[in-house]
């Protein structure tokens, strides 16, 4: 439908402003129809009442939320969306899976450490480097539940149970939020932003980005992701053990530093594929790594506020950022190509019958 001769004043203008959240190709196809349907829901046919409504009324929150939901589905596209939005959708889905994998590896680490501490493996107590800082009091149980929940979220996402993952994500997000607020109020954290620096980029952002997993999104490559969990655990905790066994534990960076190095390693590993013209479809991975690098950089910078009086640790943190920045430039051109790809038209409704 093209053009609209109706003049419905402020209400129409306000709804059109909300519609700007939708991608251009979608608006071109559906905007006028959506506005007509929206106004049909408001207008009564009585000129005086309609005059008042079109001047004073605003689109309700539920209406705005429904457009936001539609926009998220379209921008983080699945099957049938233009290539550019599909690339963004795939990139966000992979970045979320990678972030949740990190949480799952940490969760697995906590569970293994607990079992090890209780001598379930028949081994001597675990080395100190594997001890996770476990809180006391009521948070003790919550801490273990949250770690186990992240493993379940990871499995739910990989197996395609997106709704389950979203419900579980609430369990994973809320305790961290409450703990951070409590720490903020009681001042028991060593630095005021330390907890938020972790919670916002590494917990809240991936959970919000779960919006990229919807009915149209293609399923994740199940086996590669599932099989990534044990090697991920070995990579993180095996490296820590090896460094301790060889007396090089002082080289272990803090957790934000480890994240920077992990993402940098992933960029290096992906670089040959990103530079190969024959590697079709590598762009979504490059974009995913760029997104992960951005979130990790935010985390690293925010966590540096914990060391305001330690120039050495700040210098180390900046070096980690430099390594991360250098590594991500290797995949950045491929990432740019992926998101700038010429949009292909989405499946369109059949032409209107005469």
């Amino acid at each position, binding site marked *: *439908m093209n*053009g*609209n*001769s*109706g*003049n419905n004043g402020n209400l129409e203008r306000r709804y059109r402003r909300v519609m700007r959240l939708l991608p251009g190709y*979608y608006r071109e*196809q*559906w905007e*006028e*129809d*959506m*506005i*007509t*349907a*929206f*106004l*049909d*829901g408001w*207008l009564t046919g009585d000129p005086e009442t309609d005059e008042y409504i079109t001047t004073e009324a605003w689109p309700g929150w*539920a*209406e705005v*939320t*429904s*457009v*936001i*939901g*539609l926009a998220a*589905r379209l921008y983080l596209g699945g099957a*049938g969306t233009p290539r550019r939005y599909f690339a963004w959708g795939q990139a966000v889905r992979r970045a979320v899976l990678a972030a949740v994998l990190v949480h799952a590896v940490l969760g697995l680490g906590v569970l293994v450490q607990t079992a090890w501490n209780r001598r379930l493996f028949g081994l001597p107590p675990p080395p100190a480097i594997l001890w996770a800082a476990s809180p006391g009091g009521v948070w003790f149980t919550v801490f273990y539940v949250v770690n186990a929940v992240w493993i379940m979220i990871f499995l739910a996402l990989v197996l395609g149970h997106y709704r389950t993952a979203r419900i579980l994500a609430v369990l994973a997000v809320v305790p961290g939020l409450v703990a951070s607020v409590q720490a903020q109020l009681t001042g028991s954290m060593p630095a005021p932003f330390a907890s938020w620096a972790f919670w916002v980029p590494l917990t809240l952002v991936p959970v919000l980005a779960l919006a990229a997993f919807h*009915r*149209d999104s293609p399923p994740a490559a199940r086996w590669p992701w599932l099989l990534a969990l044990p090697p991920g655990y070995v990579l993180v905790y095996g490296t820590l053990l090896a460094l301790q066994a060889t007396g090089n534990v002082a080289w272990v960076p803090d957790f934000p530093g480890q994240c920077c190095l992990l993402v940098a390693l992933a960029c290096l590993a992906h670089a040959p594929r990103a530079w190969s013209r024959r590697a079709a479809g590598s762009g979504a991975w490059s974009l995913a790594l760029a997104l992960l690098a951005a979130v990790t950089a935010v985390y690293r910078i925010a966590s540096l506020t914990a060391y305001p009086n330690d120039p050495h640790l700040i210098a180390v943190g900046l070096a980690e950022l430099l390594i991360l920045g250098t590594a991500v430039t290797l995949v950045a051109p491929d990432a740019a190509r992926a998101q700038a790809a010429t949009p292909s038209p*989405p*499946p*369109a*409704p*059949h*032409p*209107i*019958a005469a």
Partner: protein
Amino acid sequence: MTGQAFFVLTALADGPRHGYGIVGEVAELSQGRVKLKIGGLYGVLDRLAAEGLIEPDREEAHDGRLRRYYRLTRDGRAALAEEAELRAATARVVRVRLGLAGAEAAG
């Protein structure tokens, strides 16, 4: 097929309807349980159109605006019939398991 898609296809089963007409019909069919917002409605309509289950029928002027009507395609009719049969079969099993089927027959 999601519940919303099922209701939208059902709303179009007896003839073409425009966007807000579908919203009203779905509310009535669901006895007020499903209240589609416009973003949600068009999220369903664009999917059904992409799957070839509905198609635009005609456009009509109304108060200076154009209303686009949608209709079921042949595939849409078949998909709806199949889904209705599936849901009816499930409902029959539920009624038997709850002991309602016998009571209904006796009543």
